[in-house]
């Protein structure tokens, strides 16, 4: 075991006081991802106010988010099914921080929503119209859709899921 591990630790002030030389750089890499057959159709479905899944005609499992294959059987799964826009909360968190770790004034409640009529299939989304202390696992929720004219074929076409009271 080395008794004297090497390394020169710096403080943020060391940068501010230009104690060390640095190069600042802004990466300019940009992407435009082709969403493909499955996710294009899923997103188009959201635009139309529908949650679409795929059913494996081999094992019968319904997958959402949908894919053109069943990863467990390794077969094409081309049967599209319209799913209800209701489900239950598998797990959730109450987040006080934004992506860049700055603090939020109002917490967001991310959750994994299991969509009804599937077996534990679902996706990440946000809970709305609920106080943090009211949210529970297994809670029944329903999608709240953006106005049709504001939908753009995005996961955010569902504004959030709200508790079914």
């Amino acid at each position, binding site marked *: 075991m080395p008794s004297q591990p*090497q*390394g020169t*630790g710096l403080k943020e002030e*060391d940068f501010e006081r230009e104690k060390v030389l640095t190069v600042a750089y802004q990466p300019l890499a940009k992407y435009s991802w082709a969403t493909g057959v499955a996710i294009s159709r899923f997103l188009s479905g959201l635009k139309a106010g529908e949650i679409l899944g795929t059913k494996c005609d081999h094992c019968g499992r319904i997958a959402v988010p949908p894919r053109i294959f069943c990863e467990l059987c390794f077969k094409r799964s081309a049967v599209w099914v319209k799913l209800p826009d209701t489900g239950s909360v598998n797990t959730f*968190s109450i987040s*006080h921080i934004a992506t*860049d770790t700055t603090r939020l004034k109002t917490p967001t409640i991310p959750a994994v929503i299991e969509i009804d009529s599937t077996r*534990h299939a679902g996706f990440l989304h946000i809970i709305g119209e609920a106080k943090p202390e009211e949210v529970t696992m297994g809670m029944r929720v329903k999608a709240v859709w953006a106005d049709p004219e504001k939908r753009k074929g995005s996961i955010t076409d569902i504004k959030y899921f709200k508790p079914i009271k």
Partner: protein
Amino acid sequence: MQVKKRVAVVGAGMTKFMRRAQETGKELAFEAAKQALDSAEMRMQDVDSVALGSAPDAFDGVHMKGEYLLDGAGGWQKPYSRNFVGGGTGVFSVIHGWWHVASGLFDTCLVVAEEKMSTCLPHPQTAFLTIFDNMIERPLGPNLIWIFALEMHRYMQKHKIPKEQIAQVAVKNKRNALDHPSAQIAKAVTLRDIMNSEVMAWPVQRLDISPVSDGACAVLLASEDVARKITDSPVWIDGVGWNLDTTYWTNRDLYFPRYVANAARMAYGMAGITNPRKQIDFAEPYDPFDYKELHHMEGLLLCRKGEAPKLTKEGVTERDGNLPICPSGGLLGVGNPIAAAGLMKVCELFWQLRGEAGKRQVAGDPRTAVAQAWGDLMQIGTVVVMRS
């Protein structure tokens, strides 16, 4: 199954773990590699191959960062390659090196893991946005803590674990790290400190999380015949396992890391371990968050599902307990330069199994230990079983 060549660890090295290092990533890699070579009294020209592990390029801010780091890691004019399995990379790097030697193609392999997260601004966490699905998750504005919080919450709910029992892990590991010369913030904390720390994304609080860090680690591997010439006390890699679960993490139940269990079974099978709780003397499971140590003890089959908090509460996992867990201080205590932190666990096994861990030495002449890392979208387990 018959492995072609038995592989030993014959040297290890580690830099300090620091919030911000002045050294470039190359320089960090060098410092660790050099120490590993020196500790085995080996010259670079005697090393046949080099394996590197490093997590996302978006931390160091270099595309193809394996290429960038290679001279510091000793890769000049050598067979050199970089593996990448997210947070599982550190322990996986040893597996990557292991097959270089176990295949019989090389007698020796220098394994280096490096991470320089402080390059990434405004905060390394921001880069984690880009680990989420680019089509259906990123538009929701997620952050890394979310997935931990979602997994932790599910685990707590399934087994009805109070938060205090989980926080106990952070208390233990941060205390253990007081004895680690590389530790970034060696500071004892109380249960109350943790429970009162800022809530990031419930149930995750600030002190549940390991500190963001820069650093590097290295180990030197050798085949049995060569290892015995290098040292009288090689530490054997007797089992390796890795396993990747589906990307569709929202289609799984997160309360149990089945991919870790799969990887553990693979490694235990190779090592002839049938009863891990009895046959393993201590363990270094991956602990970037306190609950992960508990989750991974269960994944490593060191206890029943939901039993890890109880063992922690009873003191079983303390350094002087019956099954010491993270005697190094873990990521929570020593720091978390992602890939380097995973390899730090393998270094700890090496030092402990040789009786060289100094103040951190676990009692009772440990002979068999397991190190494990985890990563991706709560998805991969990487496991190494080592014996003295």
